[in-house]
Each structure stands twice: as C-alpha cells, then as structure tokens.
C-alpha cells in the first residue's frame, strides 16, 4: 500500500507538475511535538526511471503525519494550537541564529535543538531579523519534536518604525522579497516541525507583500472540499 508507480510523458526540454494518486494509510504512526508522544517519521523516496536510460534522479525526505490547527483566541487574543486534534500548551523560546558567523553545522544544530527539547520546550520561534533557518535545523526539530514558528525578514525596528521612520515600505525590491519567500517555502515546507509562517516581527509586511504571502500560503482549494478533512 505504500509503493506506487506511475508513467508519465515529459515533452522535450519541458517541465511538468506531476501529482501522484493519493497514497492510503491505515492508522499511520503520527508525529507529535516534544512531550506529547513520539516523533514518528516515515522515509519518502521518489525515483524517476527513464525508458532506455534507467534511474534518472531520486529524492528522499523523512516525513511526519501530523495535523496542525491554529486560531486566535477571541477572549485572550492569544494564539491557540492543536496538534492532531489535541490542544497543546506552547512552551517556546526565541531563536536568532546559532552562530553570528553562520557556522551552521549539523552537530551544532543537533546540540542546540536537543537542548531545547531537554528543557521541555515544544516550540522555537525564528525571529524575522534573523534567518530562514536551514533544512538541517528543521530536520533536528523534526527529530526532537520542536514546532517552528518561522518569520519572514521584516522587523518593526528596521521596517516601519523608529525616529525617523525607517523603510516604511519594507525592502526596496518587493518582487525579490517574494521570490525569496517562495523559494524558502519550497525549501522547508515538507518538515513536520514547521508549524506557522509569520510575515514579520512586531510588524506586518508592506500591504502588497502581505497580500501575496497570504495568497500563496493559503490552503489549496483541493483540500477545502467537504470530502477532505
């Protein structure tokens, strides 16, 4: 039930988007944040075999089955999270980056993130004035059960506030910002630890960027039908 092969035809020097038929799982082992259960991960392996050539490319990614829901509490104004239908009390900390010279080794990531887990935290917030963290960061958050609140590169202090007001319209090149945002989402989106994208720190991005981010990050209409949860 977890092995599927589909034939496709790709035009010369062309690019297509291929969607597999959905793969069915009965009672999958769910991925849970630190303290709520195991961080179960499945290995997803995709390979392409070309006629008269053989294996052409492959791609592998650990993947966790989990559902994250998040809403703003109308009474407290706080943000509530549910993981796999269960409410979770968030215990988190702010993360700038692990090294100012960007010596972002796997071992450093593993150690820092395991330390957060050992402190019984279940969320790390990546501040908008820092980095979009690297896939290895997310990998170890997957392993140790740290949810990630990832902000884009807007901060109130540098984009929109200060005396005099600094860069009220954000970065000069909005298209470049969106291109970087889209590419970053594609780089990181398959990690189960990725819980929330946020436009910026203490400030919303300029209107056109904010609208574009909302549009691009909305749930695909395919998943909004009543047949699907």
């Amino acid at each position, binding site marked *: 039930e977890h092995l599927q092969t589909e034939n496709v035809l790709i035009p010369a020097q062309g690019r297509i988007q*291929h*969607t597999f038929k959905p793969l069915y799982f009965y009672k999958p082992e769910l991925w849970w944040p630190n303290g709520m259960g195991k961080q179960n991960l*499945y290995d997803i392996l995709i390979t392409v075999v*070309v006629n008269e050539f053989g294996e052409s*490319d492959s791609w592998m990614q650990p993947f966790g*089955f989990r559902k994250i829901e998040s809403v703003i509490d109308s009474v407290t104004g706080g943000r509530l999270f549910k993981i796999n239908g269960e409410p979770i009390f968030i215990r988190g900390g702010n993360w700038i980056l692990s090294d100012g010279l960007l010596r972002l080794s796997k071992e450093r990531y593993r150690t820092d993130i395991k330390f957060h887990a050992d402190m019984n935290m279940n969320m790390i917030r990546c501040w908008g004035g*820092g980095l979009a963290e690297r896939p290895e960061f997310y990998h170890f958050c997957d392993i140790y059960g740290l949810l990630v609140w990832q902000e884009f590169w807007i*901060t109130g202090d540098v984009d929109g506030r200060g005396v005099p007001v600094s860069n009220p319209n954000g970065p000069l090149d909005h298209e470049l910002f969106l291109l*970087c945002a889209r590419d970053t989402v594609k780089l990181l989106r398959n990690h189960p630890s990725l819980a929330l994208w946020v436009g910026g720190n203490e400030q919303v991005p300029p209107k056109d960027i904010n609208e574009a981010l909302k549009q691009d990050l909305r749930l695909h209409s395919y998943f909004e039908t009543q047949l699907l949860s």
Partner: protein
Amino acid sequence: MAEIGKTVLDFGWIAARSTEVDVNGVQLTTTNPPAISSESRWMEAAVPGTVLGTLVKNKAIPDPFYGLENEAITDIADSGRDYYTFWFFTKFQCQRLLNQYVHLNFRAINYSAQVFVNGHKTELPKGMFRRHTLDVTDILHPESNLLALIVHPPDHPGTIPPEGGQGGDHEIGKDVAAQYVQGWDWICPIRDRNTGIWDEVSISVTGPVRIIDPHLVSTFFDDYKRAYLHVTAELENKSTWNTECSVNIQITAELENGVCLV
C-alpha cells in the same frame, strides 16, 4: 563515471580579498588558478560560511565573540563594501556519462555573486534567501573543474551609530537579507554583514529527467484512522526528445530494532 546523486562541495575552498587579486574570474578558472603560498594572499576558506568566518579561521582577525574583540574588527561602513568583497575558489571532479546532466547548486549566498566555471561566467542575482541552480553540463571537463565566485556584500550595509540600537541606521532593511547584522540591543554588529557563501554548495548528477521540489501533504479522516499522503513534484526533461518515464514513490518506516515496513 558519475553516479546519479548529489555531492556536497564543502572542502578545498580558498578565498582572497577581491582588491588583492589581480586576475579576473575567467583567468582564475582557466590559465591562472590560485593556490595558497607564502607569496599569495589566498587563504583557506570557510564554505559554507561568511567572509568574517574565513578571516577568523585564518586568525586574520580576532574572534569577534570573545570579550570586546569585535571592536577591533573593521566595520564595512568604515571600510567600504570592496573590503568585504571576496573571491572563493575550489576544484571538483565530475566525469559524466552520455545523457547525464550536471547542475551546480548554491543553497544560499549573501548577497550577490558572479560565478565562473572553467572560464564561463554566470551572474547570480541578489537576495540572501534563495537558491541558485546552474546547468554546467556542457562546460565540464572530464578531469578537474575550476570554480570561482566573487561574492559581494549586501547593497545597503548601513552604518552603526555610536549608541548602537535596533538595526543600526536601518539601511539593511532596504535589502532582502538578515537584519540583525547591523546589531540589536543584545547582538553586536556583524562587521561583514554576513557576506559569503553561507549555505551548502553541491553538484548534482541526473539522467534526462530531474525531480524538483516535491510537496508532501497529509489529510486525515475517521479520527486519524485513515490518512492520505498527497505528493506533487515538478519533473524537468533536460533532453531534446519527448521522454517516457516511470515515477515511483516508496514509503518506509522503521518499526523497531532495524526492522523496516515497506
């Protein structure tokens, strides 16, 4: 013979300040490849990493995070952008077969760069948080390949007021880059503004069809008893003919004691 897959280029890199290199990128990657010697200004480089990381590695500057040593390092606002514009150089081997394709991948560079491979130049566009993929299939040599990059700092590195403050003079906010580098209330300014090849560099070898950015989504029913995995991927055909291929997906899970469910 090149195997299908990715090879990370994370060793053998050397670097030099651009103002101290007299030859251009074409020469560096053809007739004048650089080397570390007592006469040359080239040094071992930290890749992935930043210019400042390379300088610390070579003890050319003190460790900025020790005591007040950061005050002893020249800030880009005082030196100008050229001071932290650096050349990076390495060699790699890749002997591809017929109908194999090779891509050179940069997972992140801050802020812009020109890339030279065996004398061929490519301009990399700006932006700290974007990937770059170059098809180098037709310019590779069967033996050693020469790769050089000149990496430029952010366009608006800004200045750091004497009193410090949240993001210095805020100029960095004009670029799509990390903003903490101008210093914050709890962070000292980063003198090179994190200029460099700061994430993974790799070459990937594929056949005619390559997989790009798969997307995995799960949906749940009946109180999580039933689940579906939805997988989408882009497939690019590099060849000049229509290609029939089979796309396979396999999901495995380790149960216990090394036993896998397939």
